[in-house]
């Protein structure tokens, strides 16, 4: 047995939520070609199927690109602080991809570690995540290499499976998910299927072996020299979470803000003295890989990557995670000796 819902009912639900003052974020067209997650005004802005995934991530809905932390007023020696208004609207992330939803339990660690981040956690508790299982994938997707997949349930409160003819199977995993669909579902015998998902093409054990021994490897230089040091990969990554804190002051009053930041930017590590411990781009690229595949897993037990492939999708110079990890794997295969390398080559041909 399964429970299903019609596409029109779904769209009506989205409109009702918006009408009730809930915030609904989901994928839609920006211009004629680009598909991004955005806050929706109407359900007809929503784009459900026939594309691999949006070029940005859902993190904007929980950890926005800029946020006021508190207000301040300076009057001589006297400084007055006032709290920023905390978000209080219920929000629904609709038709997220599994590789986006999976980022939330991963991010929960860092936002509840040495400090409980009030803003993130507040939004997290106000949010219900409805994921759409993937039918399609493209050359950048690699969820299956990092423990995910087209119907990975991590982070989802409910999941939709396209049945064709504007029908969806709905699986609710949490109370939040159940509450959202309460009274809306029909019983059925139809069960949703997913696409095959991307072929598993990375072996993280091999990658971590390399990271343990090869901090100084010439591979970093060779492989990442073309990186131009922008924030495109990090800002569209569901798991990157660094931010910068700045003051925006007009006269004697202002706000303290936090805005996204990226370890790929040269300014990220500049000390007040002017010294920059990561002065070259390959060092910054190495940092991104180490943080995701070595540091975060050592600290929190989970890889800081869901395999969404956005870093490669948006990179202006064809870099991102996969080209680097693939190069690491090739290096490891070459080291393991010609025999093993041939073996790997044969496997590739077989696939």
């Amino acid at each position, binding site marked *: 047995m399964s429970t299903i819902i019609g596409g029109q009912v779904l769209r009506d639900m989205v409109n009702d939520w918006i009408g009730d003052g809930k915030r609904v974020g989901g994928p839609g067209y920006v211009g004629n070609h680009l598909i991004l997650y955005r806050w929706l005004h109407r359900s007809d802005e929503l784009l459900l199927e026939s594309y691999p995934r949006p070029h940005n991530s859902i993190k904007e809905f929980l950890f926005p*690109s800029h946020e006021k932390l508190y207000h301040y007023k300076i009057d001589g020696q006297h400084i007055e602080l006032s709290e920023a208004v905390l978000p209080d609207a219920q929000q629904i992330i609709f038709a997220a991809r599994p590789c986006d939803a999976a980022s939330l339990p991963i991010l929960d660690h860092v936002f509840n570690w040495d400090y409980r981040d009030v803003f993130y956690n507040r939004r997290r508790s106000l949010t219900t995540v409805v994921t759409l299982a993937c039918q399609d994938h493209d050359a950048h997707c690699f969820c299956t290499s990092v423990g995910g997949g087209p119907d990975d349930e991590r982070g989802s409160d409910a999941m939709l499976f396209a049945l064709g003819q504007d029908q969806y199977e709905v699986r609710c995993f949490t109370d939040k998910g159940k509450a959202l669909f309460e009274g809306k579902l029909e019983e059925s015998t139809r069960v949703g299927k997913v696409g095959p998902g991307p072929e598993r093409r990375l072996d993280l054990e091999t990658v971590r072996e390399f990271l343990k021994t090869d901090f100084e490897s010439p591979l970093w230089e060779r492989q990442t020299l073309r990186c131009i040091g922008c924030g495109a990969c*990090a800002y569209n990554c569901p798991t990157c979470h660094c931010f910068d804190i700045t*003051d925006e002051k007009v006269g004697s009053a202002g706000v303290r803000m936090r805005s996204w930041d990226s370890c790929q*930017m040269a300014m990220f590590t500049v000390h007040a003295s002017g010294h920059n411990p990561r002065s070259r781009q390959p060092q910054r690229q190495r940092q991104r890989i180490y943080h995701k595949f070595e540091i975060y897993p050592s600290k929190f037990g989970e890889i800081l990557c869901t395999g969404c492939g956005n870093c490669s999708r948006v990179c202006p110079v064809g870099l991102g995670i996969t080209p680097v990890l693939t190069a690491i794997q090739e290096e490891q295969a070459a080291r393991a000796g010609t025999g093993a390398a041939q073996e790997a080559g044969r496997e590739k041909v077989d696939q």
Partner: protein
Amino acid sequence: MTKQLHKVCRELLESGKVQVIIGYGQKDRGQPPHPVFITSPEEVEGLVWNDQCVANLTTYLTRKEIRALGKPAIIVKGCDARAIVVLQRESQIDRSAMVVIGMACNGVGEPRLAKCAACDAHVPAHVDITIGEAVSEPVDPERRYNDLNVFMTQSTDERMDYWQDELERCVRCYACRQVCPLCYCERCVADKNRPVRFSTAPTLKGNYAWHITRAFHLAGRCIGCDECTRACPAGINLRLLNLSVARAAENAFGYRAGLDPEAEPVIGSFSTQDKESFIK
């Protein structure tokens, strides 16, 4: 063309005339070519040339990591080559200390990039070696501004709404800046934090400040390679802003950036005959 490119590059490296070739490689045929830095003659086979070579490689000429590789030869299209003229005029490069290889080009990108429809640089100018053949014909200047002209048929309010929607999406990833061959400042005004010059946060206000500043800093300098527009992950059509300032420079001063290595840069010179009609 690729064979000839390999031959030329092999000779340049073997003779020691250059130490590195800044060119295009393509490891995965399914993906567009990406920048590569070839330092030994054995690797030149890794260089590719095809109509998907969109990146403007001249942005690497001023990067310290690439400079450290030694004297470069760089592969450019006609539009890209203009950046070298500007960089030289602005004393950012020593033109005599590099070899510029120009590829005849009939257009790139899938679909073809907007700039290619009004290109008058199919044959690169001011290069040291030209590979391939193409015909560059003069283009009706208005054709270069087609997209801008269409945009300008809208009312002021409509245009304001458009920019509001577009700039709201900017996340300040600075891909537009990093990819730009003429955004070579060591410390961009957008990164100044002692004191902050304008909001570094991606608020609508901060984004307006960033984009207006960026457009003005590139006035009379932008060569129209549209790399910023290609790089922008938010799909913001920065091309419209660039066209607007480029037309101001062309109309008011008869100047187009990167065409003539001898011409006085419009930003770096003045004349008592200068028109002031654009100051309102």
